[in-house]
């Protein structure tokens, strides 16, 4: 075939070439498409996606199913929650009442909203900051890398729960402060993982090729490094969301987190635990159920993503 190419261009050859040029483009199968196909084949992960989707829908549209709100106290029930406050479909209090005579269904919806928001936003901040920071440190290397990573080491050596609690006590207990406090520490692990990945990708030949072409450093980072480490980042991010939710719940369980009348899964579970002895188990069961199911879902999805994105790693 090479001999054919060497021949001078004849009219027929030109026509042939025009023909080849005019052909419809063939669509390629990207590594992402392959990964999606593998993920779709994973039953546990797909079920988890479905369940998680339902939890999200519940947290967004849940309020419109109920005529009650999160603050109104039913004075008839107060003091007799064990008998009169049971979950029931007839009176519209699907999840019953909490210890203060408020509708538990709406409080769980509210709690889901805040817990999921903390989880997703916290993980998102961690992913963005951690990826950019880690990829930059890893790719530039040398002294820059040393300084940037020592900084991470220093931040990591501070017990972050202590800092978070201090922050909430000093700056006041608000949801913004929880976001700030969690976001401040969550990106550290991420940046370490990303830096490690970057170091291994940076020595691959296609990055060398980009350097030889003269592609600017930041374009190499964003076009060649980041897309190739996104697999690891995505997996880690899905595992980070439940971790964020757990942290927030722990803080709320201690009573430092979300403040009344707002609530979160952690705060609801905390209240449920306090009233366990009075026989009002549903106050614990509903928030705990949502909490456990969500965290399981995230773990299964993370597992599925890892298998899908890195088939060699099984």
């Amino acid at each position, binding site marked *: 075939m090479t001999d054919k190419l060497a021949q001078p261009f004849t009219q027929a050859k030109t026509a042939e070439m025009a023909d080849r040029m005019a052909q419809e483009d063939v669509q390629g199968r990207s*590594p992402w498409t392959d990964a999606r196909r593998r993920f779709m084949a994973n039953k546990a992960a797909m079920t988890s996606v479905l369940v998680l989707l339902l939890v999200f829908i519940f947290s967004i549209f849940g309020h419109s199913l109920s005529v009650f709100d999160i603050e109104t106290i039913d004075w008839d029930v107060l003091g007799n929650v064990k008998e009169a406050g049971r979950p029931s479909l007839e009176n519209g209090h699907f999840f019953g009442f909490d210890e203060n005579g408020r509708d538990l269904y709406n409080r769980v919806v509210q709690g889901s909203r805040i817990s999921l928001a903390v989880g997703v936003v916290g993980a998102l901040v961690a992913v963005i900051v951690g990826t950019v920071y880690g990829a930059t440190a890893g790719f530039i290397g040398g002294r820059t890398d040393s300084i940037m990573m020592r900084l991470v080491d220093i931040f990591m050596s501070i017990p972050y729960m202590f800092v978070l609690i201090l922050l909430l006590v000093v700056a006041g207990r608000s949801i913004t402060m929880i976001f700030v406090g969690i976001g401040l520490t969550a990106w550290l692990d991420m940046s370490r993982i990303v830096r490690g990945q970057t170091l291994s990708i940076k020595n691959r030949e*296609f990055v*060398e090729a980009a350097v030889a*072409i003269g*592609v600017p450093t930041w374009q190499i980072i964003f076009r060649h490094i980041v897309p190739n480490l996104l697999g690891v980042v995505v997996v880690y991010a899905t595992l980070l969301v439940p971790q964020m939710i757990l942290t927030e719940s722990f803080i709320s369980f201690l009573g430092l987190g979300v403040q009344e009348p707002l609530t979160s899964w952690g705060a609801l579970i905390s209240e449920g635990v306090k009233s366990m002895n009075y026989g009002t188990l549903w106050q614990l069961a509903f928030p705990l159920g949502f909490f456990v199911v969500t965290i399981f879902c995230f773990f299964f999805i993370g597992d599925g993503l890892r298998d899908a994105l890195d088939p060699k790693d099984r």
Partner: protein
Amino acid sequence: MKDMNASDPLLKVRDLKVWFSIKRDGAMPWTPHDTLKAVDGVDFELMPGETLGIVGESGCGKSTLARAIMRMVPAEAGTVMWLGDDLLSISKRQMNAHRKEMQMIFQDPLASLNPRMTIGQIVAEPLKTHFPNLKDKEVKQRVREVLDRVGILPNMINRYPHEFSGGQCQRIGIARALVVKPKMIICDEPVSALDVSIQAQVINLLMELQEEMGLSLIFIAHDLSVVKHISTRVMVLYLGNVMEISESDQLYRAPGHPYTEALISAVPIPDPKAEASKEVMLLDADLPSPLNPPSGCVFRTRCPHAKDICAQEKPMLTDRGNGQQVACHLR
């Protein structure tokens, strides 16, 4: 940039040295680092339209030399004159302007293509980097043309590297190098990862393209028969030093340096009788460590003809006439 005569060399490398400092195992922070002289004083010239083959054993500094010319590893000393500019001393911005005139092809065809980009994006990258004002349509048209030229169907531009064979991937790598119409391409063992029939195709393609576009090639390989086929002149490296630079035919007919002799005698002949009666010049001992190279001539520890002078004085690369330069005291 001054006007160039056809007889002026495109690239003139003088006394190029690339040294790496190596930290010894268990060394204290204050102990001095060892110096690995990967390339130690290399001189050569590259004419427009010519192919210079570079051969040598693994670890003799072939790839490091190529990367030093492209300024991908820092050089210790020397000059690399390219069209009147010293590539080693100009600013990063000026260097980037020159990068579109020199491109590189890599050894591992698949690994040199980003798995997350379509081949259209890969081939377009040099264009978009060096000609940011081109419209998307023009870029696409140019990418399709160059892909067609290297023998990849242009309608494949949306496919990903893993959907192609090794030979096809190397063609895509060649297309990426060609798309900016460079003056020189450095081929770093472009065929050693391919099987023999594909090797021939890729090499013939390179030779055709060279003729069409008047390219200069620096062709690094360890396969002497491949180098003979493609090169106008051949440079033989040993432990970061030039042993010999000769016209290709001359080198194979009458090697000037004992090391070249040994290399050529080791090339198998595709004829069982001739192969059996052929005398292979085996070299004693192993390649010395580049951390601690022999004094004088670096080849003397393995040279069958070594004399006292070889240990004391480093032989200079001297012209023997008929286009042959040899670094040896005895010849």
